Structure formats: C-alpha cells, structure tokens
C-alpha cells in the first residue's frame, strides 16, 4: 500500500484521497456509508473561534453539474469542537484536519492556538476563501498582502502542518499562492468555491438569501484544474487540488496537474461512497500503468 503514500509538508497521508471542508461534516455523517479509516484525510467543517449560526435559508441552489451554497460557516465554535466533536472522531485511523476561519487575524490566531494542543489534529487548513461571510473569509484570500498577513500570524502560533486554502475569485491565483508560501505555509489547497448567483425567473428574486453564493461541483473542474496547474508551477510547497472531482479519473487529472493530494467535495452529496470508488480507481490505474508510486504522477504531464 506504500505506493499510495504522499506527503504534505511533514504530514504523511496513507493515500491522496481527502474530503473537502464543508462537504463532509465531521466525518461521522458518512460512517454508515464508508470506512473512514481508508481515507487519506478528512478536512472537517469550517471552524471559527465562536459559534456561528450561518446565513438564513435558502442557502442552496442546484445548477447544471453543480450547486451554489451560502451556508456561511455555521458551526458551534472551536471550544465545542474540542470538547464534543474531537473526542468522537479522533480515533479514526486517518488525518483529521480542521478548517479554520475567522473575521479578524486575531480570530484565526486564537482558533489555531486552541487547535495546536490537540494531539490527533496534525494540521489545519486556513480558510481565507469562504465567499459567504460578510467579514473576513474571502477578503483575506483575494489580496496577496492580506493573505500574507494572516498566514504569517497563524504560522507563528501554529507549529504543525499549515495548509492555506485559496480562493479562485482572483485575477492571478499564483500571486496569492506565492504570498502564503513566503510566510511559511506548508501547503496550499485549491480551489474553494467560485462566487456565483442564481435567480428565480418566476419570482424575479435571487434564490439565495445572501444573493450570491459559492459555486461547486463538476462545472468548476476545468477552471480548478487550470489553477492547480498554474500554482504547481509557481510554488515549491505541495499543492492539494480540488474542484468538482467526481470520479477517479478527475482525481488522476488533478494529480497530473500537480496535486500531491486531492479533496473530494460536493460529489459526496450525490454519492456518499464516492471517495472509496476514487481510491479503488486510482489503485487500478496504478496497476494498469505499472506505476510504483503515486508520487511519480504528481505534475507529471
């Protein structure tokens, strides 16, 4: 099984198949469907220092080959995670990674400080790309200066693997990737959702309570793939690729574009067992092509 092992900084994954934050709850929501221990990693729901109620309903609109969401980081806060959710999930034999978000740099830092103490959380994913909150979130991810500042501040507080999740809603994603690499990020994950909108023609009203939301699903895959390829050729740190992955072939494509690991997101809603199918598909791909290690494929176009 060693041929599937990949590394994200100091963090070793048994395989490159991870789940994307906000699409996989805390893992346990999927425990009836799959063996969570087979996953390379689980990135849990975006966690903030204090509990958040998220945005008003409606928060979702289906689109051709995807969906818009405007959940807005509903979560019970870092302390609740630490006291109630962490004990429930920490014994799974996979890497549990917490996605951290906030409105201010201080929020991010204090949340990271709380999480660094948890033995079985080897990494955090800094969410500077949520399009659905009024303050913070994506605003940190669309300027190289702000992205650098928040990464620098969290880096000094967080000693374990620090992944920064990038927004695609920028003119040049490589600038942001370069900025967070320079401030000590161990890895970048990309892409978060694309800012989009849905309108109900009959009612002449926006579908989402927030008017705009984040687009995800297979419809974004070609753009995400391009961005992963660009970032891979810009930074030296490992890239975690995501954006519309819905089968093993998509996963291989993201790896070939330069992803050391991949995250499966929205498609988990359609098929909660998809991660296992992707894992099996990657293995048979390696067999068919006589590849000794998945690492040979990373960026190998």
């Amino acid at each position, binding site marked *: 099984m060693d041929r599937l092992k990949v590394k994200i900084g100091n963090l070793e994954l048994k395989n490159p198949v991870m789940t994307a934050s*906000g*699409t*996989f*709850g805390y893992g346990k*929501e*999927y425990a*009836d*469907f799959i063996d969570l221990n087979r996953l390379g990693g689980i990135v849990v*729901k975006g966690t903030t220092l204090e509990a958040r*109620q*998220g945005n*008003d*309903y*409606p*928060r*979702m609109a*289906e*689109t*051709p*080959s*995807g*969906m818009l*969401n405007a*959940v807005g980081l*509903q979560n019970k806060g870092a302390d609740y995670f630490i006291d109630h959710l962490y004990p429930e999930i920490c014994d799974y034999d996979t890497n549990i990674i917490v996605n951290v978000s906030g409105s201010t740099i201080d929020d991010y830092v204090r949340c990271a400080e709380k999480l660094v103490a948890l033995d079985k959380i080897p990494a955090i994913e800094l969410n500077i790309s949520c399009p659905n909150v009024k303050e913070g979130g994506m605003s940190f991810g669309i300027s190289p200066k702000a992205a650098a500042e928040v990464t620098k501040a969290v880096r000094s507080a967080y000693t374990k693997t620090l992944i920064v999740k990038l927004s695609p809603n920028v003119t040049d994603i490589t600038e942001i990737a370069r900025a967070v690499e320079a401030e000590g990020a161990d890895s970048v994950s990309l892409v978060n959702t694309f800012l989009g909108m849905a309108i109900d023609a009959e009612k002449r009203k926006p579908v989402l309570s927030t008017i705009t939301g984040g687009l995800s*699903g*297979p419809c974004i895959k070609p753009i995400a793939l391009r961005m992963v390829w660009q970032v891979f050729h810009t930074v030296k740190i490992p890239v975690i690729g995501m954006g519309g992955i819905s089968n093993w072939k998509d996963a291989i494509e993201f790896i070939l574009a330069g992803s050391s690991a991949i995250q499966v997101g*929205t498609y*988990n*809603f*359609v*098929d*909660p*067992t998809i991660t296992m199918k992707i894992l099996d598909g990657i293995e048979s791909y390696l067999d068919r092509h006589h590849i000794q290690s998945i690492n040979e494929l990373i960026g190998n176009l």
Partner: protein
Amino acid sequence: MKKMIDFEILSNEKLNDQNHLLKITPLNHEKLPQIYPGQFVEIYVPNSKSTFLRRPISINFVDESQNTLWLLIQNVGNGTAALCASKIGQKLNIIFPLGNSFTLPDNQNKRTLLVGGGVGIAPMLFLGKVLKNNGFVPEFLLGGRSASDVLQIDEFEKFGKTNITTEDGSLGEKGFVTHHSVLAKQHYDKIYACGPKPMMVAISNYAYVQNIECEVSLENMMACGFGACLCCVEKTIRGNVCVCTEGPVFNIKELTWID
C-alpha cells in the same frame, strides 16, 4: 443505519396530471430495515442531464408484506419529471431511511388528526397505518385545490375516517383545511401536518391557540439529506438546525412560526 442501495421499480401509477406513485423494492431482495413514519429517501435521478443532486422524497407507505416502499412524486421540475417518467423494471439508487419521525401520542385514548395538503399527504398514509397498528384511531383531513388534487383517498380510508376540503369545493367541504367543520366539532389531542408552508403555518397557529400538540413535516431544499452540507436549515428556538437530520418532523413549539 443509513444505507445506499439499488431498488427496482415495480410499478409507476399516474395519479393525476402532476403526481405519480412509484412502488419499489430492493433489487437484491434484502429485507427493508425498520422505517418510521415521517422518514424520507434521497433518490439519484437517472436520465436527467440538468439534475445534479439527489431528490429527497418522503416515504408514502411501507408495505412490509411485499417488501416495498411507496413514493409519491410530484412533477415540479426536471428531476421529478424524470422520476415520474421512469419505467417498470428500472433501477433507482436510494439512500434511506433518512430523518427523524413523527412521535406517537403517549396513550391510545388520545385522538389524532393527520392533515395533508397536496402532495404533503404522502407521509400521512404510513403514519396512519402505524397509528392504527398501535391501537390509535387516526382521522385524516386532506386538502387540495380541487378534487383531482386529493390523492389516495381509498388508501386513507383503510386506516381511518377521511375528511376532505378543496379550495374550489369540487370535493368535500369548500375552503382550506383549517376551515373544515370537523375541527370545530371534534376535539383532537394531537395534530400532524404536512403540506405547503402557508397551510402548515395556519395549522400550527390553530393548534397553538387551541393548545393541541402538533408536529409538522418540513420540506426545505436539501443537497445531501444526511447532515453534511447544512443547506436545509430551519430557524428554531435552538438556532438553525438541519431539517434532514433533526427533522423533517418538528414539534411546532420548536419552530419560530407562531404569530
């Protein structure tokens, strides 16, 4: 425990212009798990290019003797249109059973009224059966715009007295369910309701004023159906909660609907 398995469509009956009744059974003949009234399924929609997400559909009836589920599908968009057009023998991939369920009253002397509007009658049939099997005497109040909208009357009558209202008066009493004379004549200890939101709000207000226990089943738009996406939330006295896991059935005391 939630499962994802393939079912086979045994029959597809057109009930009116908009609604079809599908009867389905597990393809591999495995026995259906315990299912509670009010629970729902998430169906993968084949043959619909514009449909990405599964469709949440409430369980209309469980026929244990035939090992079949009944699903009442209202054709409201491309996804449900594809389901209505599905053929006998076709496979349907289904995640089930999902959500919580209606709760039965604490003793059999309690009188129950099951109110359904339009396709919202769906979960009331199975609830009626479960109530009857548990020694209760369920009574139904079904509403629709006109006679052709009131579905499965014969089925409901198997489990209890069935009252009907239509907005145009073409069947039963004329008006909305909340105006039916049975509400004035008879005291009920518990009301269950499912249907369009204005109907459920009206029933909730009625029950609240009369101090009657009341549970409603919501149908907020969902992406996953099992608590992962947090899209289908309803505002409750505890804040935003997922309708798919903490519902679809809510006691009206938990909701923020009451005027």
